[in-house]
């Protein structure tokens, strides 16, 4: 029982980190970046290559992976999304799905569909023993990372000039420009942050589930998107809460109901929450006065 809870929280923390990236980009650029899950996969491969082919130490691998993803995120935004800044949201959504398939197929070309065995990059921390339960090192790192990232993002958007500018851009791009805020640069930065987080999520995800394939990112991506919506998309604590809940729910469903049905149960939970509270658990309704 406690074991399931721990592995659920571990999985949920990975979802939370991915969901934080989703929520950042959605909250500020008002678009769903469905390629987010595939950026995770690229992050995984980047870390894998740095570690297995180049033999770099773990911190360097993680940094390299973050750098690759950050640049990738900025490039994707420039090439694919920026030209659509004034297009309908449907056009942007379809483009994002296109980018997602594009990344998967590029990965297929470069690394083939043979799964790669990902090294555990979290074992520099010893596992924690509580009585007869062992919390694996990757769980310790994942939970810690998700909490730190959540706090850092909250402080960043709440306290810093850039963070406040991001919130201003998310509300009214025109008015933000009139303040002297460079809207394009701000959105670029948002993508850079979201993609950097995706790299961390990729390393942690692959450390916990060490088979790396071109499709590795897509299912966790969708689950994390679900988590972000569950918690209230655009809300940073919401992404965290949604992620953890979803991870725990998935593990319990696998353990007590059915392994095959666990995904169905997870998505059913989302539907129920949205029926009862359409803005998600921590989502706020925007009140406008004109």
């Amino acid at each position, binding site marked *: 029982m406690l074991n399931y809870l721990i592995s659920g929280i571990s999985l949920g923390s990975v979802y939370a980190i991915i969901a934080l990236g989703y929520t950042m980009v959605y909250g500020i650029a008002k678009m769903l970046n469905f390629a987010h899950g595939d950026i995770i996969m690229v992050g995984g491969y980047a870390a894998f290559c740095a570690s297995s082919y180049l033999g770099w130490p773990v911190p360097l691998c993680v940094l390299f992976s973050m750098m690759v993803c950050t640049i990738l995120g900025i490039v994707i935004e420039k090439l694919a999304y920026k030209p659509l800044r004034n297009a309908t949201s449907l056009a942007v959504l379809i483009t994002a799905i296109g980018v997602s398939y594009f990344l998967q197929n590029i990965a297929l070309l470069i690394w083939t569909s043979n799964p790669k065995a990902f090294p555990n990059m979290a074992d520099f921390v010893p596992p924690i023993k509580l009585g007869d339960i062992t919390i694996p090192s990757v769980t310790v790192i994942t939970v810690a990372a998700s909490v730190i990232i959540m706090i850092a993002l909250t402080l960043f958007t709440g306290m810093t*000039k850039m963070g*406040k*500018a991001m*919130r*201003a851009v998310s*509300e*009214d791009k*025109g*008015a*933000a*420009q*009139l*303040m*002297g*805020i*460079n*809207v394009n640069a701000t959105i670029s930065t948002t993508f850079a942050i979201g993609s950097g987080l995706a790299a961390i999520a990729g390393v942690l995800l692959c450390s916990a589930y060490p088979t790396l394939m071109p499709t590795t990112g897509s299912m966790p991506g969708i689950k994390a998107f679900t988590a972000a919506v569950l918690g209230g998309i655009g809300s940073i604590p919401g992404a965290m809460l949604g992620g953890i809940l979803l991870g725990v729910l998935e593990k319990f469903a696998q353990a007590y109901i059915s392994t095959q049905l666990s995904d169905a149960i997870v998505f059913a939970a989302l539907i129920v929450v949205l029926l009862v509270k359409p803005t998600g658990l921590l989502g706020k309704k*925007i*009140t*406008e*006065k*004109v």
Partner: protein
Amino acid sequence: MSDTLLKVDDLNVYYGNIHAIKGVSFEVKEGEIVTLIGANGAGKSTTLNTVSGLLKPRTGTIEFCGKSIAGMPAHRIVRDGLALCPEGRRVFLQLSVKENLEMGAYTRSMSEVGESIEKVYELFPRLKERYKQVAGTLSGGEQQMLAMGRALMSKPRLMMLDEPSMGLAPILVDQIFDIIGDLHKAGTTILLVEQNARKALAVADRAYVLETGRIVNTGTGSELLHDDSVKKAYLGG
């Protein structure tokens, strides 16, 4: 008289194929209040939005402090000292009053911001009482004060106000115009767009009348207040 701050010459602006601004020319001198009046759809807001950089002109020149700014991105133009307080206020509803003011000073270094915020609070004591509240909870009049305060935070050499009295109760309209007068006395140059032509002309040094994208009349505020065609069209006879 004093130096020309803003000089717009033969400006043409299109929305797709619609020719919205047809060869408009006007200027604003340092220390003046200039107003553009006209009916709905005459092109008043379009003119301000083009000067501020939100819209791009097809042809024509816009010079601010002797420097051409036509076609420059809006976020660069603010830096040069030209602020627009946009139509419909457009304050950031989910940001607090204080954060809104800080955004107004985005182009300036953070160390100078505190002093400017105090000045805005002096001008609008109501904002000081509510500095922690999110702007979405303010009344319409308070939001207008916030929008004006926010525009002032960039320390503009020229402040453009688009319909500051829109949708406000008469007593608040009077208050807003008093504040415009105060700002002017304190040395701010103002370009004012208003539907409320009577009040705008009363406060303005000079005025231009816009009709379907063209300037059809110009003069001092009091000249136009007593001009028969202006009286008939905009002041209710």
